[in-house]
């Protein structure tokens, strides 16, 4: 394959995602790898695999935008943009009608509101804590000795309105054990975990106007998360085809925009402080 490519790399705390777009904005390659200890290497690995899928090599890359927790380590990037802007961009490309975007990641959760004009109007990140994030689920799963996929499968068979009361990951682990001892069904307890996250996320919503989109690794892997959010919001939520790739997709779209917009120099020369 030949032609220009635009790359978006999203280095999250758990997974590194890469998306390649062609000059027409078509998604031609993508890949996810665990972020591991070396963010730079993970970004390279995800990019190599995505290029393989696209049948292209690095010489085709015109622009790259890096986002996510480890964005500073991505050498292919010509620009760095926060995951908040990138997720909003990616989700809106899939669903132009969304007004709120909920991104549940491994380490943090973001709620982004966009105005009718498409501009970011407001956003919030969760407080410095695992509550309401993928880490919360992972740590309880670890404690129970089962996988995330198993918790999800169990939760989907829930028949009650059980919700875990604890936001704190440590307390949630204890609460799960107490509930098992009290004879509650694993299916109901599992769904209770997702509902706990959903109730934390709903607190972050500043506005409930307009359609809600969901992105991030947790909704990509757990149908129960989407169900819990729909219950909490009492409305259908829009789950894009590649929720985990929303940030990388948004980053690639920004790279493409940058190339297709006029090529004038930036208004401001970026500077670095020296004290």
């Amino acid at each position: 394959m030949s032609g220009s490519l635009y790359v978006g790399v999203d280095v999250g705390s758990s997974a590194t995602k890469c998306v390649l777009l062609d000059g027409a904005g078509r998604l031609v390659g993508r890949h996810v790898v665990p972020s591991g200890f070396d963010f730079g290497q993970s970004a390279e690995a995800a990019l190599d695999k995505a290029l393989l899928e696209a049948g292209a090599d690095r010489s085709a890359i015109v622009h790259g935008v890096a986002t996510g927790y480890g964005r500073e380590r991505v050498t292919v990037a010509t620009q760095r943009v926060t995951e908040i802007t990138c997720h909003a961009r990616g989700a809106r490309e899939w669903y132009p009608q969304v007004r709120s975007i909920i991104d549940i990641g491994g380490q943090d959760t973001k709620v982004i509101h966009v105005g009718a004009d498409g501009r970011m109007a407001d956003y919030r990140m969760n407080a410095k804590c695992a509550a309401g994030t993928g880490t919360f689920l992972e740590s309880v799963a670890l404690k129970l000795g089962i996988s995330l996929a198993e918790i999800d499968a169990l939760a989907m068979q829930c028949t009650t309105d059980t919700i875990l009361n604890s936001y704190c990951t440590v307390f949630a682990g204890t609460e799960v054990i107490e509930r098992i001892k009290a004879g509650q069904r694993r299916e109901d307890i599992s769904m209770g975990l997702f509902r706990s996250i959903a109730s934390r996320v709903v607190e972050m919503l500043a506005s409930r106007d307009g359609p809600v989109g969901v992105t991030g690794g947790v909704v990509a892997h757990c149908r129960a998360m989407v169900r819990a959010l729909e219950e909490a919001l009492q409305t259908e939520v829009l789950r894009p085809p590649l929720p985990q790739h929303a940030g990388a997709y948004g980053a690639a779209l920004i790279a493409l925009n940058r190339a297709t917009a006029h090529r004038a120099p930036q208004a401001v020369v970026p500077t670095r402080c020296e004290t």
Partner: protein
Amino acid sequence: MVTMAVKRVEIQAAQRLRTLLREYFLDLDAASRDPGRRVAWCSSAGPCELLTALGFEVYFPENHGAMLGSKKVSAKYIPRAVGAGYSPEACSYMNSDIGAALCGYSPLQEAYGVAGPPRPDLLVYSTNQCREVQEWWNFFGRRHGAVVLGVRPPLHLGEVAAEHLRFVRGQLAELIERIEARFGLKMDEDRLREVVDLSSRASTLWRQVLDTARAHPSPLTFFDGLIHMAPVILRRGSQTAVDYYEALLAEMQARVADGVGAVPHERHRLYWDGMPVWPRVRDLSEKFFDLHAVIAASTYCNSWAFDPYDGGDPLLWMARTETEVFINRDEEVKEHFLMEMFQRFDIHGAIFHNARTCPNNTNSRFGMAQRLRQRLDTPILVIDGDLSDARFFSTAQTLTNIEAFIEQLEERLR
């Protein structure tokens, strides 16, 4: 991305400030060892003028708390205070100060070669800012066998009425009587007027310094303010503070005339509400600098910008400054103050710091950020952190939050 290293333009007065602080702490140390001199500890918005007029050398423990925060050692000493029964969620200035005292540490040791804070003969607080200062002072009162006295203005006022001021003035008069009786002193009214006048002049000059940030580009940032506000607290009521701010004001006015900005290519003008994040001041300052964003105004630095003294009853002026201080007002007064500040300084976006251990100086707990956002269509970012305990602050998450905020402001410029 091409980056260009740009050097910060140093404020010349900083050298003079270093000398001023050195002399202040060395003199306090000398006073605490001289049986003929007395030292009083006072809360930062407390009635320090009457203590100075009565001949006390005044020391401010909150400044010591901030030093512990800046030196990034709070987390090391807080556990000692927690072990002594102080909640880990209580004021981290207080906890780190108590913990450091229990461990025999003070940043004054390395900075000025003194043993630590001066031993108090008297400790005076005002609950106009919080009740934490009362318990903090009580700890050191017990430790040093020193008397602890306080002023308790009516709290969280909307309108400040004449009866409020009479009530607080009465407390100040009684405070003087108790100190006079305890230490065998007599207040010299002329001296009190003189100290109040000097205090008010320094405060007025400080306000004028802060006001120079209305210029585009702003000649100073919040982070400069954090350094240069020291004399208006520590040396309030002295000619030294007045002289210092006259020099600083002249320097800032010259910067404005020459178009010198505190950040290069100033692009975004921000407001900071709440406490500083002392252990991360440098990270934050560099981030805003790199993003061409100047924090042109803040609630914190303005807390010591009092109304001028008219030469009348000095205790009434003190009662007013005690009572009218921002932190002691209701939500509506605070909201109006912030709206005026946003307008006055041409603010594009505001940052509210939700300080975990200081709810008193945090204004994002009762919906104010949302109300202001709606009323003014000004983007507002709330960041979680703490004034001194870095364990409540995630640098990576906060810096990303700030970058995203600037991206949001950039979008609005398009």
